[in-house]
């Protein structure tokens, strides 16, 4: 085969795969979202947006993302810096920290449910040490704050490692000489982090943040396990439209809204963390 055609031949399988399993379903979903009895319309979008649960599920999703992602960013940066500095046992620590990645999000939700529910570990422990007299219903509708906190904790536990892995790889790409130069020219460890690590880590931060923010808008199983119907989010609403209400047009419309939000945030992150031409490592 001619060398000019070879690259196209090599990307053909993955292109086909994406067309069949991504592009084609996407077109179907769009058709459902914009379709109606009499041709194209925005009817499903109007229905979805005007439903009383839409604002609250949107608010919950955004609040959760706003609470979880910054904490995860800070934590993963801290953990990545620590791992990078380690001389020995680095791989072991990295494996242990990434274990939650190997657990499905529903299983993770159930693990944290086992901690927070009325007969769970937390209650048994607190009763055991005499902090409270009888088990408390942490996750009941009377404690929306605790439900939010439990979901946020579970999400942080479950999904920080995905950012960690990306950032560890990114920090590994920064040549050591930059840190030595910064040190010789008077930068303190904190200044070296702010003035060398962070700016040189921008490409990895972009990837990690986009991945994490998009996943945060798709949060579902953990929320369902811990909050049930007490804490509606966008994804649980899509589920409800599709399976409880059997309204696949509305489900598709809401799915496209989530996609639009994800695209907007991706563009914002790309713009905010862009690296000027000529300023790459």
């Amino acid at each position, binding site marked *: 085969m001619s060398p000019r055609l070879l690259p196209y031949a090599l990307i053909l399988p993955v292109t086909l795969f994406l067309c069949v399993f991504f592009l084609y379903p996407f077109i179907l979903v769009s058709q459902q979202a914009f379709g109606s009895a009499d041709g194209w319309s925005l009817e499903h979008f109007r229905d979805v947006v005007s439903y009383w649960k839409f604002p609250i599920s949107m608010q919950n999703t955004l609040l959760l993302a706003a609470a979880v992602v910054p904490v995860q960013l800070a934590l993963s940066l801290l953990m990545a810096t620590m791992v990078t500095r380690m001389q020995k046992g680095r791989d072991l620590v990295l494996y242990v920290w990434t274990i939650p990645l190997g657990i499905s999000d529903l299983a993770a939700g159930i693990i944290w449910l086992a901690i927070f529910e009325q007969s769970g570990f937390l209650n048994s422990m607190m009763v055991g040490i005499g902090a409270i007299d009888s088990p408390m219903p942490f996750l009941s509708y009377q404690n929306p704050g605790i439900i939010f906190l439990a979901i946020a904790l579970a999400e942080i536990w479950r999904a920080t490692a995905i950012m960690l892995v990306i950032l560890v790889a990114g920090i590994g790409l920064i*040549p050591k*000489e*930059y840190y*030595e*130069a*910064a*040190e*010789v*020219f*008077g*930068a303190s460890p904190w*200044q070296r982090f702010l003035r*060398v690590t962070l*700016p*040189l880590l*921008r490409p990895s931060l972009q990837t990690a943040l986009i991945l994490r923010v998009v996943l945060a808008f798709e949060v579902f199983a953990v929320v369902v396990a811990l909050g049930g119907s007490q804490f509606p989010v966008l994804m649980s609403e899509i589920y409800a439209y599709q399976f409880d209400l059997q309204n696949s047009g509305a489900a598709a419309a809401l799915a496209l809204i989530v996609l639009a939000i994800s695209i907007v945030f991706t563009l914002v992150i790309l713009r905010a963390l862009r*690296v*000027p*031409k*000529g*300023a*790459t*490592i």
Partner: protein
Amino acid sequence: MRGDLQKDTNDMAEIQIKNVAKTFGAYQALHSIDLAIADQEFMVLLGASGCGKTTLLRIIAGLETASIGEVWIGGRRVDHLAPKDRGIAMVFQNYAVFPHLTVFENIGFGLRMAKMPNDEVKRRVERTASLMHIEQLLKRYSGELSGGQRQRVAVARALAMEPDVILMDEPLSNLDALLRLEMRAELKGVLAESKTTAIYVTHDQVEAMSLADRISVMHQGRIIQAASPIEVYRNPAAQFVAGFLGNPPMNFLRAEKAGDGKWNVAGETVDGPRGAEAPLQFAIRPEDMQIADQGLPAQVRLVEPLGAHLLVTCDVDGTMLRAVLDSDLSLKAGDHIKLAPQPDRVRWFDPETTKAVA
């Protein structure tokens, strides 16, 4: 313009390294180094890779901690101080010009860290940039610069600090040959002008000879000889130095005692040291021999015309010896010639201790 780069002359920046040693695990990288470098001196640490020269430089910089020993700069003990408190600046082998900062911010990096006011930063950056001829590049990023331009930024960044001591770790080794020659001359001029004490690490003997006030030749974690370039070249203190410097290096022949102050070299009797008894190494530089009626009997094995002269490899009593001879000579492999060493250029080494014998 250039004059104001001179630092305060009261501020003496002599360096003393006292009994410094460094071990990495079981590996002894430096053995008890003692070295004094005078204020404003240009000292080159010369040696093959792995000889410990970079480790020594990094210990002076504070990027590495000595296992034992002391480092003094300007009469102040600094080995317990952070690099920024030692009055040093450094030029790194791979330049370490920050890719995310413009040339201006790179040169001003240390000044910003020292919380210098903006107008002073601007003044110093512009001055050192014009000194290094990169004033037109101040707004660029390092990705838009050539290797030589990055090198200039790295030197300007160090000079902008107006340090007592400037440390350079093989700063020219990543440049191509022509650029290296140009930067070498420029570095020498700029550093002499700034009256800064300089320590320069290199494995390139030509670079060392051309830049240094003094060269410290290092080998296996020790300083073998610290002296002026011409002294190191003419009077090597040890056989290692003689063989390391010079291209081609010094020739060595075995010499047997043949009487008081007389030595037998390849069947010829040569005047030599009086004290020694055991066999010595007779040593002569390739350019210090010429063809004569009397001299070491040699059979030509290889003739390499180098334009200005001939590089002739001959067999002298079973040892290969190289001579740099006049290019007008017509020599060919197999010719029998006599090579007369210039008597005042002959050196002697003890094969046991490898040290020079007077």
